[in-house]
């Protein structure tokens, strides 16, 4: 048994011991509670002009815990939230009903239990509780990479690759292909199945979507046994168009805008509160402007390629490098801040959501 194995074992044992200790004291440890919400919706006729694409559907109270808020969609006709009301409405069709479980802070469960131990509205959610523990495991597994590459990290790595690759493909399908491509080419299906309020797409959009579809298929031709070279066309198109678009945006809003920003007066007179000029402040302001100007010039000189950095140019470039270094130092300092905040967030997850050691948001008390 080598040293690393032992280290892992010891860490693991200590950890489990602490976990057990924590779990058996106080409110216990990482659980997720959910509240039952009965959704029952009755479909009714629409009020006149509002009756466009969608069939409107009214929330309808049936029994306890019903979602009784009326959706304020312009397409929906309002009917009084009264049990049989929807039946009396002309053209009323069948209701659609389902149950939603929404997460609630543990304290709500504690309260509910205290008042009525037999209640079933707020219950422990096993899937989410397991999820919480899985999340904690993944968090620790990633952290373990800091010590050394290990089986837990490898597992976490494999999971994040698989899940995220799938995730982005799903997002691409539902948020890009469906609304943009199919929304433009086969609107009726999209309206029927996904988005009744889909806006009609203008001709130009339709054309560009057909175009995109063709280029996309050309891309996929790579998978075909022969003629894969055709995929070079869509790529070439993308690269060319990108070049055309970026040159405009960068020259306009970076090159020109930043140059204009540098063409400000160096001397700056700061008016004093009492009236007149605050010379002390003015001198500092002027100095600052001058320093900015010098910095911009020197750093630009550093970026010259076709001149050897010797003599005057070399000296100027050197100053430019100093400015760059200061810039980088500042960026570094700022970034540290952000990174620590992120780490803090992860620790808060472990201590608060999982271990229930701290309760900054008063979710449990």
């Amino acid at each position, binding site marked *: 048994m080598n040293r690393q194995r032992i280290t892992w074992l010891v860490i693991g044992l200590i950890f489990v011991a602490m976990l057990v200790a924590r779990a058996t004291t106080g409110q216990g440890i990482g659980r997720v509670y959910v509240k039952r919400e009965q959704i029952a919706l009755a479909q009714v006729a629409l009020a006149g002009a509002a009756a466009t694409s969608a069939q409107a559907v009214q929330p309808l109270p049936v029994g306890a815990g019903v979602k009784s808020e009326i959706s304020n969609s312009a397409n929906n006709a309002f009917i009084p939230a009264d049990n049989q009301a929807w039946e009396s409405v002309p053209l009323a069709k069948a209701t659609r009903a389902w149950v939603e479980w929404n997460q609630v802070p543990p304290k709500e469960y504690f309260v509910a239990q205290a008042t009525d131990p037999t209640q079933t509205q707020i219950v422990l959610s096993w899937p989410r509780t397991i999820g919480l523990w899985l999340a904690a495991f993944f968090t620790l597994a990633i952290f373990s990479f800091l010590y050394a590459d290990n089986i837990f990290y490898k597992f*976490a790595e494999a999971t994040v690759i698989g899940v995220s690759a799938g995730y982005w493909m799903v997002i691409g399908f539902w948020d890009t292909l469906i609304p943009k491509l199919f929304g433009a080419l086969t609107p009726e299906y999209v309206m029927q199945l996904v988005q009744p309020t889909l806006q009609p797409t203008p001709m130009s959009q339709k054309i560009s979507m057909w175009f995109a579809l063709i280029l996309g298929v050309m891309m996929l031709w790579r998978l075909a046994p022969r003629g894969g070279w055709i995929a070079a066309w*869509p790529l070439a198109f993308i690269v060319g168009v990108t070049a055309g678009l970026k040159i405009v945006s960068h020259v306009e809003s970076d090159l020109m805008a930043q140059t204009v920003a540098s063409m400000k007066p160096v001397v700056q007179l700061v008016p004093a509160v009492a009236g007149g000029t605050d010379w002390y402040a003015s001198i500092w302001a002027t100095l600052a402007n001058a320093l900015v100007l010098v910095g911009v010039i020197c750093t630009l000189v550093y970026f010259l390629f076709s001149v050897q950095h010797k003599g005057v140019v070399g000296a100027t470039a050197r100053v430019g490098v100093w400015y760059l270094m200061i810039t980088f130092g500042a960026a570094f300092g700022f970034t540290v801040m952000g990174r620590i905040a992120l780490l803090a967030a992860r620790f808060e997850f472990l201590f608060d959501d999982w271990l229930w050691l701290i309760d900054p948001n008063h979710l449990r008390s």
Partner: protein
Amino acid sequence: MTLRRMIPMWIAVIGGFVMLLSAFVRPIEGIGENFADAFNVIAAIAVALGAGSLLKVNLSKISRREAGWGFAGVILITFAITLIVGLLKIGVHPSHDFPAALFSGKQETADSPFGWLYEYAMVPLTSTMFALLAFYVASAAFRAFRAKNVEAVLLLVTAFIVLLGRTFAGVVLTGWLPDWASGLRFENLSVYVMQVFNTAGNRAIIIGIALGVAATSLRILLGVDRSWMGGGDSA
């Protein structure tokens, strides 16, 4: 130059010039916008290629029993599950406004399997990966921030000032300074650094980058550089 390489080049050149002109010619103003959508669609279609490569590489790992083939299996399984529950919106209720439309619900809804995967696998994994940076900045600073020369000194002194100036520590250390010297307080120093040196440095970097982008784009648009579609034989 072969036709097979000439056609793509001209596609790029023409496409690029049309976009360039669309910034100046009213009738074709809109096409730049349409391209953004078109690109997203092409990219979304092209993920099939990515998925293909992901499957191929991992399947061959498994079949060849390469080191860590088990994890390749984990990748494939998690990938497949996420894809299926997501594409079919399994367990997703329709939106409250349009229960009639089968797929009107958002796929990320918390109590759907996809939402579960997102919240309890993807979020903790990615944000913890992100959080590792806190450790890496520490070790990087410890190792690399050494006063080897003027440049290094400037780098670390600035980082120093900003680090102290951006917390309560700065206030404690230099808060005693009288008002006429308040400019030397860490929190103010760090603001000056940002507004003077950092502004100058970044401005030059931004201008330089803009020039670089312009030149790179022109190399493509004028067909001077074609190595983006395969190295070597330019000119």
